[in-house]
């Protein structure tokens, strides 16, 4: 199960809506081994495409060095689908390389850049095998909302 706080959940959806019709992508980092997604890091989709996403290689290095320095790992790796359902594509499965991460898929196909509900689903992708999991959205505490 993925447990994620409301403000991070909302931030992922806002990013996906903003970048629609291109795919949006990013991570939520958290302390290594904690399984707590705490630090929202939106990334630029270097592919700038409605059907593909890729972190820029220089930014990718920067992100991983930064997480390393903070003893963090990518707890959530998210991206959006803009014309299809929020389920990992064959490419997503083939390229998934963080066996400990929750892969979050958001679909903006219904409302695009506009207000309205968005499909938000989470998966484990290990050795080509996809397992969907429950998403629990918890209310943000006051201190966390001040920090965000």
């Amino acid at each position, binding site marked *: 199960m993925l447990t994620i706080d409301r403000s991070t959940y909302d931030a992922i959806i806002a990013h996906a809506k903003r970048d629609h019709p291109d795919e949006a992508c990013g991570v939520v980092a958290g302390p290594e081994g904690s399984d707590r997604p705490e630090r929202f890091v939106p990334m630029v989709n270097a592919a700038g495409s409605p059907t593909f996403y890729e972190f820029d290689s220089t930014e990718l*290095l920067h992100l991983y060095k930064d997480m390393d320095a903070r003893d963090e790992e990518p707890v959530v790796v998210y991206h959006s689908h803009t014309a299809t359902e929020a389920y990992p594509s064959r490419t997503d499965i083939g390229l998934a390389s963080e066996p400990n991460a929750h892969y979050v898929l958001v679909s903006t196909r219904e409302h695009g850049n506009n207000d309205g509900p968005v499909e938000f689903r989470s998966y484990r992708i290990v050795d080509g095998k996809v397992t969907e999991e429950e998403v629990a959205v918890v209310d943000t505490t006051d201190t966390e909302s001040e920090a965000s």
Partner: protein
Amino acid sequence: MTIEVRIPTILRTYTDGKKAVDGEGATLAALIDNLEGNHPGLRERLLEGEDLRRFVNVYINDEDVRFIGGLEAELSDGDQVVVLPAVAGG
């Protein structure tokens, strides 16, 4: 001549769980051959035929090797090599 190579989580099955290993080589290609000797199977995860895999990024001292000669990129004692799988999909 020693080169430190940082290994991503998904490839640590080849390095007994180690986050970093030492290798040797005057070029990236030579380094990868050297690593293969101690960590069999790693080469195949980095290369496709004679080229770096499209969705594997390798950096020498923070430079993406694609911009500094690819597998022919030169290495010196004390250089740091980082391997990171692309975060990408469709």
